[in-house]
């Protein structure tokens, strides 16, 4: 931070070194090379380049599907673009934000930031401790300076006291000094304000590190999982109850906070008018939440997650479950209950699989669609509205000899057709079942029957535990505050000199992107000290390269 006379804008000041200063001598010792590297890394130019690189590197992730956001679209993309995939896969283009190259860029950026900020903290602390800088010998050379004669009858001490008072009222730090020059002895004041600018700048940059730490901490100690819960059913916070679960390495997944939820009802409302028909209007899950110390009936809506201890419960999806009863060839109950169908489009055309492995003599399985508002046209069966206005089930049937129990987990949403054959009708075509609630279907050859008893909704609950968020959000708030300070605080230095002969000099300097008010400050200070005097304000130098100033407009 050099220069009391140069109105330096701000920020890293050590950039002016010409390029030829770079050591090119190959005989550099390892320590020197390291220092050279460090200087390069912490220079503002490198910071700028890294900033651009971060911006550039973030772009592909917004255009290419990402595994962390839409895993299914990644699979589709890989299938549709096999050639591009050969390039993208090794580059980590499907996981841009956790890829080594993206991480390398932002870690280098943070390293560069720290390397720049830490020395500046030292400089700043020193600047805060030292009094405002001494009075420059030639005040008239400063961007703003005025001279006058001390008011008659005003003693020098009194005058300086008055000036100090004015400066203190404007929140300047003031230091008095005296000395002698060719023209004689003088007494004067140095004043400075706007220390908070650099403080804000440092706070902002440190807060960015705080955000990074908060997010990293969160990645270690957070967990997040989802579970699809049908109306009337419950959920307990143990890992086996989750459909999907992701946890940081520091989470003990055997000891998740104990609580349970029961989904009493799920309400969904959709736009029925002509504009945006089918758009969601309301989602509301009525639940009973039981934690260690209490049981309460409450509701979860989209912007109102449920908080249980440190955990949050969001509703992040919904769909339909078909209640079916399956009897086997012997007339015994083979399966009964709700089966979750997974939505495929905005109108909740849903796909699902109903398995009755215990059916005898042959096990049975059904695969097909649940349509809340069923329509069959040239596109085939699909739903035209997300609400259950005309729910129907469309199923195909598979049967086969009972399978050996392996104990291996099986995806409940996918039918493994190995060892099964599709049930056909007399004409040899596959059996296609179309059911409305309350109806049933007898399979050919006495293989059994299925009835569609009704439907209910299910909600996809997300349970998340994110202990690093308060750190990250507090850092963000502090960072924004620091940013405001660093951009809006106007550091200013003012000097007053009283000469023996009664001459008053007042001058000032703005240290960051000059703002309005400096001439006024200097003027006011002069007015408190000097009486009527001829104006000796010199014209400030014109920064314009061309002599065509047009500011009159």
């Amino acid at each position, binding site marked *: 931070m050099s220069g009391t006379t140069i109105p330096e804008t701000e920020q890293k000041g050590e950039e002016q070194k010409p390029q030829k200063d770079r050591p090119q001598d190959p005989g550099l010792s390892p320590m020197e090379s390291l220092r050279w590297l460090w200087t390069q890394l912490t220079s503002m130019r490198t910071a*700028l380049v890294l900033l651009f690189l971060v911006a550039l590197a973030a772009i592909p992730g917004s255009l290419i599907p990402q595994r962390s956001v839409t895993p299914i679209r990644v699979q589709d993309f890989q299938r549709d673009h096999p050639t591009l995939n050969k390039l993208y896969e090794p580059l980590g283009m499907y996981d841009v934000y956790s890829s080594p190259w993206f991480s390398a860029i932002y870690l280098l950026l943070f390293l560069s930031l720290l390397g720049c900020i830490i020395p500046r903290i030292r400089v700043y602390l020193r600047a805060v401790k030292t009094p405002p800088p001494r009075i420059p010998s030639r005040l008239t050379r400063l961007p703003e300076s005025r001279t006058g004669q001390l008011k008659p009858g005003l003693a020098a001490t009194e005058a300086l006291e008055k000036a100090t008072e004015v400066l203190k009222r404007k929140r300047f730090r003031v230091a008095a000094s005296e000395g002698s020059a060719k023209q004689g002895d003088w007494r004067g004041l140095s004043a400075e304000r706007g220390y908070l600018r650099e403080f804000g700048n440092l706070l902002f940059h440190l807060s960015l590190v705080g955000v990074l730490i908060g997010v990293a901490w969160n990645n270690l100690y957070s967990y997040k999982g989802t579970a699809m819960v049908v109306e009337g059913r419950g959920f307990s916070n143990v890992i086996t109850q989750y459909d999907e679960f992701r946890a940081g390495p520091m989470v003990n997944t055997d000891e998740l906070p104990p609580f349970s939820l029961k989904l009493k009802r799920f309400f969904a409302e959709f736009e029925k008018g002509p504009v945006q028909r089918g758009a969601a209007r309301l989602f509301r899950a009525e639940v009973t939440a039981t934690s260690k110390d209490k049981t309460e009936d409450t509701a979860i809506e989209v912007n109102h997650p449920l908080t249980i201890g440190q955990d949050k419960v*969001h509703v992040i999806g919904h769909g339909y479950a078909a209640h079916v009863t399956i009897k086997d060839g012997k007339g015994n109950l083979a399966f009964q209950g709700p089966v979750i169908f997974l939505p495929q489009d905005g109108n909740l055309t849903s796909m699902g699989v109903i398995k009755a492995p215990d059916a005898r003599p042959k096990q049975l399985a059904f695969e097909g669609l649940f349509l809340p508002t069923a329509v069959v046209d040239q596109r085939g069966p699909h739903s035209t509205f997300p609400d259950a206005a005309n729910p129907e089930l469309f199923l195909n049937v598979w049967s086969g000899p009972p399978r050996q129990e392996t104990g291996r987990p099986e995806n409940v949403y996918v039918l493994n057709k190995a060892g099964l054959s599709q049930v056909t009708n007399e004409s040899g075509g596959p059996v296609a079942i179309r059911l409305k609630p309350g109806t049933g279907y007898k399979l050919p050859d006495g293989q059994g029957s299925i009835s569609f008893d009704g439907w209910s909704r299910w909600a996809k609950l997300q349970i998340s535990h994110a202990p690093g968020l308060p750190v990250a959000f507090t850092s963000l708030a502090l960072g924004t505050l620091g940013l405001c300070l660093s951009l809006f605080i106007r550091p200013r230095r003012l000097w007053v000199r009283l000469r023996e002969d009664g001459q008053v000099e007042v001058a000032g300097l703005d240290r960051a992107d000059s703002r309005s008010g400096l001439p006024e400050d200097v003027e006011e200070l002069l007015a408190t000290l000097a009486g009527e005097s001829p104006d000796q304000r010199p014209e400030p130098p014109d920064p314009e390269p061309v*002599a065509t100033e047009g*500011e009159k407009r």
Partner: protein
Amino acid sequence: MTLAEYASGGIVTAFIFYLLALLAHSAEWATLRGVPLRDTSATALAADDDEFDPARLRSDMFGRLGIILTGLGALSQLAGVVARGVAAGRAPWGNMYEFLTAALLFAVVAYMFGVSRWGLRWLGLPMTLLLSVGNGLAVTVFYVEIAPLVPALHSVWFIIHIVAACISAAAFNLGALASIVYLVKRSAVLRAEKRSPENPTLTGIMARVPSLASIDRFAYRAHAFGFPIWTFTIAAGSIWAEYAWGRFWGWDPKETWSLVTWVVYAAYLHARATAGWKGRNAAIIAVVGIASFWFNFIGVNLLVSGLHSYAGI
């Protein structure tokens, strides 16, 4: 006519006013083409002052007309946006059409304030061009009928997040337009210096817009004002996302591009403080910044699918 129709009418009327204002400002610039600055100091005659140049007076008249037309446009826009909000019974920025018209309202209000406070009329031509194109797009491409909001938008953050986005949009757009004028004037200055190195003189409107240093300072102030608010916009969006979607940051395309925009503006602020990057390069970064901002608004909504797409578009 229903209130909703009045609302659309207001936006269409504003569009027409902006178009007329654009014509007026074009005339303002065109009438000064090739007209050199008159210099009182050379002759000490008041009649030789630039203020009394007939071409200059004619241009000035067109300029004033442009401001009046823009002001009328701003009033129509205000009426249109407010009527839309009243007709919908909610804040009028629930889809692309509404957001664009609301954001342009903030921009035109900021501009009109700047005209009266800091003499921003030199931004008249680019500003009315922006307003015409923006409102034209809103009326023709993005228009949708009034409808209620999806559940994710039922939140107080719907006001906070989007108003902050509108304010920073206004600041960034004004700053970017100033940076473009800066680049144009800079190349004019360089050409003038090349033509006659001893006595470089500018003519036309470029001789009459503020000095390069003042334009640069205005652009910096606009960006410095917008940047913390944009930071806040992203932070508020992140908090809202944690409530609405159960995650604070998910690299949704809109989030990614907000961050890209933020980083570009951070680079702008750093560039202005770095030797060799001041002036021209900083101005170019500002233009890249606004391009990224607009891509985030239009490109991401239309080309990439993500969580920030509502109401069809």
